[in-house]
């Protein structure tokens, strides 16, 4: 920077004509160098996040559409099915290819992955493949098709082969469709999943509903609280804000434990109610939706109160007073003058709460029942309790899309650079 300016100084001595151009060039050069330096400071974190955050998540999401297991493990039958037109049964050569592939995969110990993939599409396929593998005779005494159908009549069904063809990859919409309770039938057209297997529309709807309810409750509780705190003198407001922030700083697990203690059937609240004679039978307050709302609102309420508080703090009381002096009833003055000025805070608080609520996992898992689990629970379930990574990825795509869209709205409205903590 300094050298740039010095060079500009020398140039000025040399020629007055060139002065402006040289100076501008030197300035630009110095600014560019400053830019490079700034970028160099950001680079390590950028690379770190790319390696440990963006790429892993991208690779994970890609599993929602990439489908290569079956083609890799059962290559010849996958190739043979490419030429099958989908009507009737595949040619004898496809059956021969399948037998060869199953033998090879069993020998190599890789059959499990292919079976797992096929089983997602057609429940029972794992068993079919392994049972077929076990029962294959060493020497074929009949045509391959006859032999296989003899082992299991399912090899004589078009649906079985269609499922196998669908899994041939290299890309698939199978998981994304499944995440919406849709599937492709033997004719490759999209249909609804069988009723007893439909679950994800419920889960998606439930996730949105719980998040919306939590947001609404947070707003209804948070707005008056922020209003009261904003009207206090700074010292007292500080103490009250401390109380709002205390749970924000307390470990999520600690708070969840506390809710279990408070809400359980023979817990603190029930014994209190019983001893006060308010109820005669313990209330069922945990492992249900009620507990989920209570615990989630408890965690997320500070995210509503803080932006509302900071907006309200900036509204001069004279505005409402002016409205009142002009004859507006207190409530009208509040509704017409005060509330509109807090809309930005309401928007920011609601978006923040809603975005965070969408991804909730631990709290519903610990205090909710089976019918209260949100989409994150199912993502974790498919990733760690079954090896259905495609399904975990497809659900992640749904969740992430919703989150990022809302984040973009938030960014436009509030601006990430204006985010404050604590």
């Amino acid at each position, binding site marked *: *920077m300094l050298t740039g300016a010095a060079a500009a100084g020398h140039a000025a001595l040399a020629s007055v004509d060139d002065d402006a151009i040289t100076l501008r060039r030197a300035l630009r050069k110095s*600014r560019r160098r*400053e*830019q*490079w330096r*700034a970028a160099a400071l*950001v680079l390590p*974190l*950028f690379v*770190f*996040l790319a390696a440990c*955050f963006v790429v892993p*998540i*991208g*690779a*994970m999401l890609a*599993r929602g559409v990439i489908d290569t297991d079956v083609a890799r493990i059962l290559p010849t039958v996958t190739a043979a099915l490419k030429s099958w037109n989908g009507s009737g049964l595949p040619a004898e050569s496809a059956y021969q290819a399948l037998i060869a592939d199953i033998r090879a995969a069993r020998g190599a110990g890789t059959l499990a992955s292919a079976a797992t993939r096929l089983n997602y599409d057609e429940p029972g396929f794992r068993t079919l493949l392994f049972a077929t593998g076990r029962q294959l005779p060493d020497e074929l005494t009949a045509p391959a098709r006859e032999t296989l159908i003899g082992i299991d009549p399912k090899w004589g069904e078009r649906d079985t082969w269609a499922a196998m063809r669908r899994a041939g990859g290299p890309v698939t919409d199978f998981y994304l469709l499944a995440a919406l309770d849709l599937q492709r039938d033997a004719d490759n057209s999209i249909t609804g999943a069988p009723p007893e297997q439909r679950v994800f529309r419920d889960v998606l709807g439930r996730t949105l509903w719980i998040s919306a309810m939590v947001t609404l409750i947070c707003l209804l*509780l948070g707005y*008056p*609280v922020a209003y*009261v705190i904003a*009207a206090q003198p700074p010292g007292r407001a500080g103490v*009250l804000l401390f109380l*709002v922030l*205390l*749970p924000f*700083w*307390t*470990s*999520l697990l*600690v*708070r*969840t*434990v*506390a809710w*279990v*203690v*408070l809400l359980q059937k023979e817990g*603190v609240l029930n*014994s209190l109610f019983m001893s006060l004679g308010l109820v005669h039978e313990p209330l069922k307050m945990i492992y249900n939706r009620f507990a989920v709302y209570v615990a989630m609102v*408890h965690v997320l309420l500070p995210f509503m109160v803080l932006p509302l508080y900071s907006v309200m703090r900036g509204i001069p009381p004279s505005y409402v007073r002016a409205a009142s002096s002009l004859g507006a009833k*207190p409530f009208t003055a509040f509704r017409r003058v005060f509330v509109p000025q807090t809309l930005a805070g309401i928007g920011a608080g609601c978006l923040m709460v809603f*975005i965070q609520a*969408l991804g909730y*996992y*631990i709290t519903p898992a610990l205090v909710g029942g089976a019918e209260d689990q949100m989409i*994150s629970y199912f*993502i*974790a379930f498919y*990733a*760690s309790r079954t090896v259905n990574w495609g399904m975990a990825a497809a659900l*992640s795509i749904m969740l992430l899309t919703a*989150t*990022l869209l809302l984040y973009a709205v938030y*960014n436009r409205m509030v601006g*990430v*650079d204006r*985010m404050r*903590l*604590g």
Partner: protein
Amino acid sequence: MRNPTATLGERLTRIGLIGLTGAVLLFLVAPILTIVPLSFSSGSFFYYPLPGLSLRWYQDFFTSSFWLSSLKNSLIIGISATVLATVLGTMAAIGIWRARFPAQALVLAMLISPMVVPVVIVAVGVYFAFAPLGLTDGYAGLILAHATLGVPFVVITVLATLSAFDRTLLRAAESLGASQITTFRRVMLPLILPGVASGAVFAFAASFDEVVVVLLMAGPAQRTLPRQMFAGINDNISLTIAAAATMLIAISLALMIAVGALQRRSVRMRQAVR
């Protein structure tokens, strides 16, 4: 708020508002207040009234190899992740503050995004990516993952501190012949240190409280405190959890007060410079 001409309706509204606020604040604090006395119970159930007072659950905590090793794991992972996140995050925040470069808004959005992307997606992503690299067998994978989660806190707090930082100070130092490193060490760092430190506290708290990544990735040798508590709620709910929770609350309070003090200090220092 006080207004001598208030009508009855207004007065009732005010009382209602204050009552509601009190109830909400109680709702926010009650769980924390409930769990602390239980940890001193001499009985072994989550009941009130307490049968008597004792420190047996604290004794249980400090003599249990499970709880102690999980505390150790939490500290190792938390401190390492904090150091990593603080160094990288502070550098990046200074870079962003120093000059506008192309696509800066996009880069900033990316640096903040770990705070927004649902943790379960981060957890599943790193779980798949780190396993083949052998990063999941020890602390390394958890430290890296927790550092990514802590980075946004550092970036945001340091940026906030920098926004009040007077650029002319740097120019003054440089015009007096100070090298860049000296300028940073002697002029900039002392002034932004409170921001850096509170960012570090946030990052540490984020790691210390994190359980989703740990649930997916950690083996039995890397169990952290929250993971142990999770297992406790699911499996063996005993009052040792209450003791652990009470200590965590004490730590949170300390961190909270630290951040408050740091922020006040930052304001004071800025005023002093002016």
